[in-house]
């Protein structure tokens, strides 16, 4: 088991290395660098000035050297001030060191956000905690509801409850966040006026009034999927011999479901819930933009829209890490929950 986890962690590190190289390459394509230079300098700058800005801020060094600096395996060189010839800070708002230092991801330095004029860490981590709160609320809503729907539907396969709930779950998987968000806003904010169509005020304080719509919107897409998986797993368990035995020895239907079926039926949904995280990540971006909630997704869109290189790299690193770690947890947890499967 331990060697399995270690091997998986090794693959994970390799995957992250490859992915960051790809992201690094794509962000540093020439048109993207030009866009960054244009947004960072005054309007109407000539091509030579853009070029000198890029060279002056160290964007024209060798690709692998820059990647190594970002990673922290090569020392970051301070730039040379063209006027005085002395070493200068790349960006004054980030406290870059004036002597060559190893300062990259491995040392815990995420770099400098050109859009927000601050360090990436001071922008990214508050955003992550804001999104963490949102995710927590979503999971608290999504998991109980979807498991309940799945169990009720799968308890008696083919019954009217089953058909109704199944169609409802199919409908919910057909409703992406930007569709349900619009529909919920129309119903609950425009017509009924019960809820706030914007969660911008949620960063000051979360209330039922401003936080319900984002949570609802984000939860609805996942509910259908998890419920369908739970139903499939429940249907399978209910046809097992031990369920029939329990029924034949005279236990009531309810107690058979709760005591015998549930425990085995909930193993598969665990994996599904863990693997739902990557989808939730996309949903988070849509919902945060739609409801103007200042979290991770909002930061990612801002970073991508303004070609903020270090911030976007930080965002990709975090999201890829979340995807990979949830995969690992789901594999390990599955083996842990299901004694019949032991990893070799």
């Amino acid at each position, binding site marked *: 088991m331990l060697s399995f986890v270690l091997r998986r962690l090794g693959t994970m590190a390799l995957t992250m290395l*490859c992915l960051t190289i790809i*992201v690094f390459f794509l962000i540093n394509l020439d048109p993207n660098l030009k866009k960054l230079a244009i947004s960072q300098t005054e309007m109407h700058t000539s091509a030579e000035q853009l070029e000198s800005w890029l060279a002056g801020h160290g964007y024209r060094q060798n690709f692998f050297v820059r990647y190594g600096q970002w990673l922290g395996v090569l020392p970051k060189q301070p730039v040379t001030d063209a006027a005085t010839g002395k070493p200068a800070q790349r960006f004054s708002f980030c406290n870059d060191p004036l002597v060559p230092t190893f300062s990259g991801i491995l040392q815990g330095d995420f770099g400098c956000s050109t859009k927000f004029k601050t360090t990436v860490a001071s922008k990214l981590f508050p955003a992550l905690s804001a999104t963490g709160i949102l995710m927590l609320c979503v999971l608290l809503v999504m998991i109980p509801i979807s498991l309940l729907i799945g169990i009720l539907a799968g308890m008696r396969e083919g019954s009217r409850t089953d058909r109704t709930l199944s*169609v409802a779950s199919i409908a919910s998987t*057909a409703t*992406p966040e*930007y*569709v349900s968000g619009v529909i919920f806003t129309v119903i609950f*904010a425009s017509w009924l006026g019960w809820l706030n169509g914007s969660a911008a005020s949620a960063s000051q304080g979360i209330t039922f009034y401003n936080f319900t719509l984002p949570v609802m919107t984000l939860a609805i897409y996942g509910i259908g999927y998890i419920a369908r998986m739970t139903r499939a797993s429940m249907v399978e368990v209910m046809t097992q011999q031990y369920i029939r035995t329990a029924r034949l020895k005279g236990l009531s239907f309810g107690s058979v479901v709760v005591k015998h079926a549930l425990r085995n039926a909930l193993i598969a949904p665990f994996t599904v819930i863990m693997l739902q995280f990557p989808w939730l990540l996309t949903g988070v971006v849509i919902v945060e933009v739609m409801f103007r909630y200042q979290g991770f997704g909002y930061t990612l869109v801002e970073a*991508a829209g303004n070609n903020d290189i270090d911030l976007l790299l930080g965002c990709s690193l975090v999201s890829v890490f979340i995807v990979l770690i949830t995969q690992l947890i789901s594999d390990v947890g599955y083996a842990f929950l299901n004694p019949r499967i032991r990893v070799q």
Partner: protein
Amino acid sequence: MQVEYISAFNVVLGVLGRFWPVWIALAIVMGASFVYKKKLGLYGQLFDSGVGIVGVGICLFWLFTAIFASTVAPFDPLAQVPIMKDALPGGIEPASKLIYYFGGDKLARDVFSRMVFGSQIVLIIAPAATGFALMVGVTLGLPAGYYGGRIDTVLSFLANLVLAFPVILLFYLLVTPGIMDTPIPYAMAGLFFLFPIIFFSVLFWTRYKNRPDRLYILLGLTLVLGGWVYVGLVFDADPLKIVHIDPNQLNIFVAVVFASSPGVFRIVRGLTMDIKTRDYVAAAQTRGESPWYIMLWEILPNARGPLIVDACLRIGYTTILLGTLGYFGLGLAPESPDWGTAIKDASRLLRSFIHPALPPTIALMSFVLGLNLLADSLREQSMKD
């Protein structure tokens, strides 16, 4: 000048009336399928369940809407009639006396016509991208599952690499105006569009190796047709000027294929690993058939059930992806009538007007719902066998 309005009942009636070519086509196809359902195999079995009928009905409805879009829609999706700015549903356009059934949007365009024309974009890109993803996934998944070993390790690692990317990040990196200046989208298009040609060539080669009369015709057809479409799509150099795709549409197309082919790869790989242990594969191996013959003519036909179900779901998912792209304003032109862009434009103004937001959302939802219902009932039917 004041815009006159018709009543809500007349709006409903008028909208149903505008769809007349769709209703006729739908009645013909559904009626014919219903009568001959015994002879139509898996497709005919769909008509045994209510869910299946609804699924097929919705999908065909949008298919015919896309085909007859110019008849159904009363206005040009890009035409602006200033007086109709933010008009409520049922407003009568003074010049032509035609009706803005679902009102006008903030740029005074007809919401109804935009919704109808939006279906064209979705129904061309989503199934085509799914088809290409299927080809890529099948061509790579079969050898990975059949041979195993190093080829499997490498391909699975690459697939997991793409799958570990959050979709939205992938699109923000791959679908930007800047990337069109670099050769990356064209290189990727060149790579992906090669797969269908490889697939069909190998398919015919393995089957008709010993029957040159058939082989040369089929191979020639594949190479000529495939090469023609390939040149048209990747280099935009079709000598007959028929096959053409806008650079930004190519970019979207490539990004969508790139994002969804690893999923197909994983499914095909899993199915292949399962099926290769069957007796008929062992029999074919004993006969001395080549590995690619076994993969394409023994394993693939037996994996078709789950693949068809997956393709249906995947078209729906691709539709959602296209909507996401539109919602973030990536790739598609800002005035394009596709549903995602329309939802983006309308959702910013929800506080003042809600009517431009509802038609595209309901259209997108119903189409994906139709595909999901179709997939669900296909799965039920194939489980019965």
